[in-house]
């Protein structure tokens, strides 16, 4: 039943169709932060050139639910040449930090396994934002709420695939049943390993398994992904224990200092009468 996406970065050509298709379907505007005013020009002008290869949008944001990374690996002699691309988005973790953190039940997991922010419920407390080990979910000043990829909740609940996967010209992004996707991923991994290429799957174990997982040709770090992401709530019990112990300690200290009752009891009673 659980749906997800398999992103085979080894056949991504960095065309960014996924980024635009996502905006088109989800009605997202271009990122306002990427544009500025110019004297005498009535409309906004893009000013977000970064010089970071062909990546000018930089990160995921409340309006950029997808982001394609460009990693140039070329040695000085130009003998070893690789240009890696990877289309990043919400991973829809099986154990989702943002969902765990949400105090209002704005963030829920649907029957298809995707994690969505219910805009009508979100109060914009921003707790989910630092709680995502992948830095995915973002706050929008415009709406005062948190936003992220919904795995095209409307599409997948109406029998369609995600907009990005549909648009992807090379089939680098694939939507489907998790089980099928894993089969495909394992086959592709074996094929690459067979050709002696270094490749690994990212997302089988992380956060109890990512519903959106990747085939990388290098270490996750290279693609800007955490090497060993921790669902922050897994620290909760220990933190609580330590805090409670401290509380008891402080209580003890107080006890030691304020212990006076027994010898003062009579006076107190006499006062009362």
């Amino acid at each position: 039943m659980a749906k997800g996406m398999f992103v085979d970065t080894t056949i991504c050509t960095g065309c960014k169709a996924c980024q635009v298709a996502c905006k088109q379907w989800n009605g997202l505007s271009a990122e306002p932060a990427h544009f500025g005013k110019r004297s005498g020009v009535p409309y906004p002008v893009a000013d977000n050139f970064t010089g970071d290869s062909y990546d000018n949008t930089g990160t995921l944001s409340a309006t950029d639910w997808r982001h394609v990374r460009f990693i140039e690996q070329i040695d000085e002699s130009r003998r070893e040449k690789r240009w890696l691309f990877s289309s990043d988005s919400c991973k829809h973790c099986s154990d989702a930090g943002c969902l765990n953190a949400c105090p209002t039940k704005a963030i829920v997991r649907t029957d298809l396994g995707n994690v969505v922010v219910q805009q009508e419920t979100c109060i914009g407390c921003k707790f989910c934002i630092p709680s995502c080990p992948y830095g995915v979910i973002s706050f929008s000043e415009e709406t005062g709420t948190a936003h992220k990829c919904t795995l095209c909740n409307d599409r997948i609940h109406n029998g369609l695939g995600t907009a990005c996967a549909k648009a992807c010209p090379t089939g680098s992004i694939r939507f489907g049943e998790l089980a099928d996707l894993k089969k495909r991923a394992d086959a592709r991994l074996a094929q690459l390993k067979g050709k002696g290429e270094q490749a690994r799957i990212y997302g089988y174990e992380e956060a109890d398994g990512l519903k959106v997982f990747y085939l990388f040709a290098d270490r996750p770090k290279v693609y800007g992904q955490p090497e060993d992401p921790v669902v922050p709530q897994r620290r909760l019990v220990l933190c609580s224990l330590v805090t409670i112990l401290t509380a008891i300690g402080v209580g003890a200290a107080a006890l030691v200092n304020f212990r006076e009752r027994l010898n003062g009891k009579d006076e107190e009673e006499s006062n009362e009468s």
Partner: protein
Amino acid sequence: MGISRRKFLKVTSGIVGGGVAAELGILNVDTAAAAAKAGKVPIKSGRQIPSICPYCAVGCGQIVTVDDAGVIVDIQGNPDSPINQGTLCPKGAATLQLVKNEQRWSTVKYRAPGSDRWEEKPLDWAMSRIAELTKKTRDANFNEFQDMPDGKGGTIRKRVMNTYAIASLGGATMDNEWNYLHQKLMHALGVVYLENQARI
């Protein structure tokens, strides 16, 4: 330092992971509520019209969705097309913004000779003015005959029936039908400076 800290985190999550996961199970991941949404999540819909991507020459099939008000609400790849099988490139995926765009002009603009600004004009006025200018320019600069080199150093008088005073430069994202009509009209007028993006 970093390593030991990492170990520490691992241990932590190891110890309490199970416990928390359990908690999540009971207290948090409420699929019941969300499941109710399944199936009746609202989605863009409308009449679907087959079209072709306006950008490059690959010829990707597109599906244009029009709502009940006759407004184009969505443009995406046509899954049936053996060329793109539903996929699109970033330009193709942005086609909707080409159609629905605040900067797009939908009225005739006119700039008088020497003026420093546009003024709006009715379409009909512009068409008759353009026709008038075309005729005037053609009639004043039409060549029935022209002396051409005869290949032996001399010249020979040839019938050319053309005008050099009007030129036309067309784009290559315009219909075959337009190309046909346009070359037909230009040839009828004697225009020989007839060019197209296809040259480039």
